[in-house]
């Protein structure tokens, strides 16, 4: 079943007098449970695509169907609900809230969704042990290593049991070894049926995905699925 259907997506930015076509005439079809790597040179529109898929950004033209529903016409709050329940983000720079502990950071999406504290605690405890963070629960982000921080971020991205995980260069700030751990974690999640889309500059990492998209100037230059 198609999780994501993009048709004729345009995303333009105005930079002074010139318009930048960050995404131009983009058509894309991603099935549920796929593992997709998005690659391409800097400025080719990878992050723009991911923001769009994550409903953080809106296209200037075209339609985006998520799980069969047109989400481009939703109100900001409806989009927030979709983000809350269906999408998990993993960022290159982790984006943890510095004053909150690891456990509180993981619980943040559930708190925003208004889930009861008892249920939150239960799920956080499980996530902590799943991601090997048991004895780091009360640590603040600045007391964690880069790998641990990204594991907290992944735990947070999965805590609402989303259908889709979007990761923008998740290993960009990590050394090779810890990066490998993080990718293994993400792939394990994909193994459980979560659709995984990873932006990466690392060809070997991209090669591990089931499908490779290469972008250039806002267009799909190649798609391993249609090759």
């Amino acid at each position, binding site marked *: 079943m198609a999780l994501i259907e993009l048709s004729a997506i345009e995303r333009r930015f105005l930079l002074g007098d010139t318009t930048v076509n960050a995404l131009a005439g983009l058509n894309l079809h991603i099935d549920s449970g796929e593992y997709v790597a998005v690659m391409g040179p800097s400025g080719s529109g990878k992050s723009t695509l991911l923001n769009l898929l994550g409903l953080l950004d809106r296209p200037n033209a075209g339609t985006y169907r998520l799980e069969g529903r047109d989400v481009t016409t939703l109100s900001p709050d409806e989009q*927030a609900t979709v983000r809350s329940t269906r999408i998990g983000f993993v960022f290159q720079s982790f984006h943890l809230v510095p004053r909150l502990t690891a456990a509180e950071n993981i619980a943040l999406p559930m708190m925003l969704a208004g889930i009861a504290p008892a249920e939150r605690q239960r799920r956080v405890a499980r996530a902590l042990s799943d991601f090997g963070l048991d004895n780091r629960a009360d640590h603040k982000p600045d007391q964690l290593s880069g790998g641990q921080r990204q594991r907290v971020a992944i735990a947070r991205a999965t805590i609402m049991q989303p259908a889709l995980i979007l990761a923008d260069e998740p290993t960009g700030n990590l050394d090779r070894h810890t990066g490998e751990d993080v990718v293994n974690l993400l792939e394990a999640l994909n193994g459980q049926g979560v659709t995984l889309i990873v932006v990466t500059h690392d060809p070997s990492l991209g090669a591990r995905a089931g499908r490779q998209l290469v972008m250039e100037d806002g267009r799909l230059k190649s798609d391993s699925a249609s090759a």
Partner: protein
Amino acid sequence: MRLTDTLRFARDAALGTPLRTALSVLAMSIGVAAVVILTALGDGARRYVVGQFSSIGTNLVIVLPGRSGTGGFNPANAITSTPRDLTIDDAASLRRLPTVRRVAPLAVGNSEIAYGGKLREAMVAGSTAEFIPIRNFVLAQGQALPEEDWNRGSSVVIIGAKIRDEIFGAESALGKLVRIGDRRLRVIGVLKPTGQGLGMNTDELVIVPVSLAQAMFNSNTLFRILVEANSREAIPGAKAQALDTLKQRHRGEEDVTVITQDAILATFDRLLGALTLGVAGIAAISLAVAGILVMNVMLVAVTQRTGEIGLLKALGASGRSIRLAFLAEAAMLSAVGALVGYLLGQLGAFGLRQAFPVFPAYPPDWAVIAGLSTALATGLLFGVMPARRAASLDPVQALMKH
């Protein structure tokens, strides 16, 4: 987002920047403390003055000779000769009025009092038995002037506390004969010391029967007639009846002025009440300033936490959740500031009362309520703008600022 979570999140966010939070709490608390202390001062002044005036007597109606200027130009008065003086019989005639409880004529002058070679100046009040209860004076020893014919006073005197001390020292004063002017009078009472107040200082006063005082000063007029009405409600009736009676006695001429203590009190009450309101208003300006400061603190917080706001949006926070979180933070800053300021203000008022025990420096309830609610309202009001700004941030842009 649940309310308790919103509050906890806002609290943690505020505590995350302790210095900034402390400063805005301080500003708010200074504003509230200013309202509390300044109104305590203003209302204290009002209570002090009103209290002093009340101590002059209760339900007093005072008759003065001569017409006050407020009556307007009266041609009838213009042709007649100088106004008739008030006499002891005028005073006596007021005793029959149904609305009147007590009447005391009052003649005053200065003389000297001598005993056993000691001599000093004294203010002489000539009056009758009811002078002391009307004026709320208290006797330390002895008794009041005798009930007798007002025109034939006995040769007795009641002396003030300071005069007693200076003339008699350790000796007992009661029953002794003193010389006042050219008369020898027996001391029958000593007044309790009163100290300085708005009313008359009785410590250097001697009280003699009114006819004696008139003879001493060689006049048959009165300085005042003090009338005590039956009750507060009876004051206007007593005033009208007194005026009427005296007008009849003075052949239809209205040549006296009758004032009521009530009217004077009300004037002072109004005046000082307005003053309190004025200082409260001035203090409230500092509250508005504090509100603006809270707004700035919150705007800085929004700017500093832009990345965090972007993250919250990415994690599925609705605009409403973000607005409420920032609004709650602003409300907490001003609520805590208001509370601290209230305590500081009460402490300051307490300090004032300790330093000046005669001065009842209590902040009025209305000022406390108005101060606290203004603080909360400005805090919330000025928190709305930063909260809206936070909620309307573009998530992609916000996420890039990390």
